């Protein structure tokens, strides 16, 4: 028996009636048709909410009052944004919603039936036994998923489902049995989809599309916390349009990411696993990426320009080489320069010294001029690899004397020979060789002489020393220091002082690639065992912007020579470290970067107005302590902008380190196969 509504313009029709129950006046129903869509009891619907993401709820009751008004009772699903305060750092999926349970405000509401906007496909992915697991198709079609509940009283999140959840039978919460068919998608939801199509460009045919569309709705919506959303949105367009330096880091990340996962559409890289406020950061990403096809030429020019202006940044070079298929001449030079470096790397193990020097000159800015000129001198010689082989290495090896005091320029030749003849080029060999070569250089052709001598020399050396040199050694607690650090009569200075002194003297070395579990004393032991040098070491503290995979340590050696020796030895050979597990990593050492002398570096973000009028006492005090600003103040808005920047920064560091991590892993795989040598 159907009750037909008089108001035909509303396109409404009640369908199945339910038993009246207690209340005689109200007529309960089980289903109805609104605007051509059939809604059944326990369907999930979108409820109208002006300008914002529509609420999602489950129809648990529907009836008509005696005065012909129609009501529905809706049991709410909660968006992560709505409960971000209690979610904290819990990660929610893109299109996840939470089912409200408990008693009190926010559980369910009675609303006029006309507030229903459309049907919503919500699939329950809870792993509960009683829940029919959704098929992949259903997941694809679903607008939202849920598997957790939020208790509106205790504000707790859980994924356990009791028999009766929020007053409803559990069967109503879980997915319907497969035999029942859900109502077909309504126009309104597809309309929502279409709106979002405008933002996306054409190649969005991927599965993620359906998942992320409702999320896009959220992006549009004004979130309750971010008051100056409109201005932020405006700012976003500014960023993408005119702001190239902004684009550059993003481009880096994007292109870096692209390198790693070329298959996935770039847009969706960062769409997974996002706590609520990050949706803003996402928006920027998406706009960035959308903008990029248009402004891509400009962006590509940027790295090149940077290279022209300062030759310092090898990382830029590498990126340009990898990603940009540009055929400007300048670019070719750069890439061949890089190729030259790489070819050297491939051919012999000596060139880490060179590369180190390039890096050192590139990043630390000391002795820029002479080294830069050397680098640029290499560029014209980049015709054939054979030529590069000799010439650049010679040039490169000229730099070595800067570091090594006791090796003279003959090392260049002997190095060349060493490389030519055998791959073993230990520093010791060369030193020994060098001395012999010097003696014999007088009458004979240098190369032949040292060539002749070398196998013998190395034969002698390698038999005994090779065993010792290449065998593993266990680092134990080192023997007690002979001089208690050369004197026991003065108190050791605080670390900072010592570091400054060491830096000035040139005895400070920065070590990379240490296992994060090491402690400072262990590092000292390692240095003792490997180099027979006493030192003081300190593991650097990890910050959110430092490398997550491995630790760094500062090592203060005793003399400059010791420092240089350590550095060159680390460069030329590989000291492999492990910590008990089978993973070995080569230790990397560089000279210590410049120490910041003053503590008061420029801090951005604190603004002050020069007020001509006198401040009263209270104002002075107020600034020096802390406070939470009210949401209706200017400072709150500005704080939000800083928060936004912070989120972006977190994202780009994350992606950056992820990218680096994968790069490192790929190389590490090569090492993992090896086992410890027993000589």
């Amino acid at each position, binding site marked *: 028996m159907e009750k037909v509504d008089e108001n035909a313009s509303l396109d409404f029709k009640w369908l199945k009636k339910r038993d009246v129950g207690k209340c005689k006046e109200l007529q309960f129903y089980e289903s109805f048709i609104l605007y051509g869509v059939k809604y059944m009891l326990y369907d999930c619907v979108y409820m109208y909410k002006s300008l914002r993401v529509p609420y999602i709820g489950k129809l648990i009751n529907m009836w008509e009052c005696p005065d012909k008004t129609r009501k529905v009772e809706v049991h709410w699903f909660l968006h992560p944004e709505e409960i971000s305060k209690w979610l904290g750092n819990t990660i929610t999926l893109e299109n996840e919603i939470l089912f409200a349970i408990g008693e009190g405000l926010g559980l369910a509401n009675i609303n006029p039936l006309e507030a229903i906007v459309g049907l919503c496909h919500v699939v329950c992915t809870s792993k509960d036994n009683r829940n029919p697991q959704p098929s992949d198709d259903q997941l694809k079609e679903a607008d939202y998923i849920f598997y957790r509940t939020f208790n509106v009283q205790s504000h707790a999140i859980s994924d356990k489902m009791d028999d009766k959840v929020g007053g409803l039978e559990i069967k109503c919460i879980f997915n319907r049995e497969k035999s029942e068919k859900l109502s077909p998608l309504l126009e309104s939801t597809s309309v929502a989809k279409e709106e979002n199509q405008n933002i996306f460009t054409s190649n969005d045919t991927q599965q993620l599309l359906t998942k992320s569309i409702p999320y896009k709705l959220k992006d549009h919506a004004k979130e309750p916390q971010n008051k100056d959303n409109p201005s932020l949105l405006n700012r976003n367009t500014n960023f993408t349009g005119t702001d190239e*330096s902004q684009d550059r880091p993003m481009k880096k990340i994007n292109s870096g990411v692209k390198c790693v996962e070329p298959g996935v559409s770039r847009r969706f890289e960062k769409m997974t696993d996002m706590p609520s406020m990050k949706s803003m950061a996402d928006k920027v990403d998406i706009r960035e990426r959308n903008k990029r096809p248009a402004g891509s030429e400009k962006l590509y020019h940027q790295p090149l320009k940077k290279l022209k202006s300062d030759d310092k940044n090898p990382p830029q070079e590498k990126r340009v080489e990898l990603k940009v298929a540009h055929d400007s001449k300048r670019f070719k030079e750069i890439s061949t320069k890089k190729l030259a470096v790489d070819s050297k790397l491939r051919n012999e193990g000596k060139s880490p010294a060179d590369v180190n020097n390039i890096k050192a000159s590139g990043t630390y800015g000391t002795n820029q001029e002479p080294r830069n000129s050397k680098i640029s001198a290499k560029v014209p010689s980049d015709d054939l690899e054979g030529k590069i082989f000799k010439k650049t290495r010679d040039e490169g090896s000229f730099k070595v004397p800067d570091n090594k005091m006791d090796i003279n320029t003959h090392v260049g030749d002997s190095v060349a020979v060493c490389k030519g003849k055998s791959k073993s080029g230990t520093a010791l060999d060369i030193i020994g060789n060098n001395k012999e070569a010097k003696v014999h250089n007088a009458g004979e052709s240098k190369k032949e002489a040292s060539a002749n001598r070398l196998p013998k020399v190395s034969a002698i050396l390698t038999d005994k020393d090779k065993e010792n040199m290449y065998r593993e050694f266990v680092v134990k607690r080192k023997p007690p220091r002979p001089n208690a650090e050369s004197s026991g009569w003065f108190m050791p200075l605080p670390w900072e002082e010592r570091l400054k002194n060491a830096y000035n003297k040139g005895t400070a070395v920065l070590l990379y690639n240490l296992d994060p579990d090491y402690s400072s004393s262990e590092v000292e032991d390692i240095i003792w065992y490997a180099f027979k040098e006493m030192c003081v070491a300190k593991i650097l503290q*990890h910050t959110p912007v430092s490398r997550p995979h491995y630790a760094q340590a500062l090592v203060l050696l005793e003399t400059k020579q010791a420092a240089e020796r350590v550095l060159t030895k680390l460069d030329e050979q590989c000291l492999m470290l492990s910590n008990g597990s089978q993973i070995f990593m080569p230790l990397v050492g560089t000279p210590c970067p410049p*120490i910041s002398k003053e503590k008061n570096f420029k801090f951005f973000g604190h603004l002050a107005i020069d007020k001509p009028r006198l401040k009263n006492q209270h104002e002075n005090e107020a600034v020096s302590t802390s406070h939470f600003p009210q949401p209706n103040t*200017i400072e709150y808005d500005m704080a939000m902008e800083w928060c936004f920047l912070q989120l972006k920064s977190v994202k780009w560091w994350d992606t950056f380190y992820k990218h680096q991590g994968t790069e490192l892993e790929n190389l590490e795989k090569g090492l993992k196969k090896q086992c410890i040598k027993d000589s």
Partner: protein
Amino acid sequence: MEPSVEEKYAEFEQRVKRTIYIDNLSPQVTEEVLKKALNQFGNVKDVEFIPTYFKSCKVNAALVEMESVKQAEDIILEMSDSPLMISGMPRPVRALKAQAEMFDERPKKQQKRIVCYWMDPSHQNFEVANKIKTLVKKHAAEAAFLMEQQELEEQKLHNQQLETLKVNHRKYELIVGAEKEESVKKLATRYGTKLSDY
């Protein structure tokens, strides 16, 4: 009795859980200020600043140990929700859970053997190892570069906000100044409108 290595480490881990990592601090923030700021939420046991040695690293941060794990977690939640400003506006500080690696001196995790060796250059993995070394250096350079870029961003935002602030301030001053002037009052009476809100 000397506590065993595991016990020491367990104790250390507890300490880590109770500690908050706070950064985006202005260089003028002292231990006192931090303590006062966070004492609103609980009892601060200890404040330790993370030293930055190099010119390239511009993060100013501190590790604040609270009395209990709950206090620490509450603070972090609170600060992620609404911005707390210490010693200046409007840049808020950021609070994160502390990690073991952030601490300066940490006890050994367990007794372990450190094994190392000099790799034989004729070993086939020598090149791979060298590649790793160069990669590590490259990464360090990249990180430094990214840090620079980040700083540029911050500077830009700072300047932007300063500009708008100045402009707004001037506007307000103008309005306030105008209200005091006689001419505005006369205008008000002429138009028959009230100057004040009440």
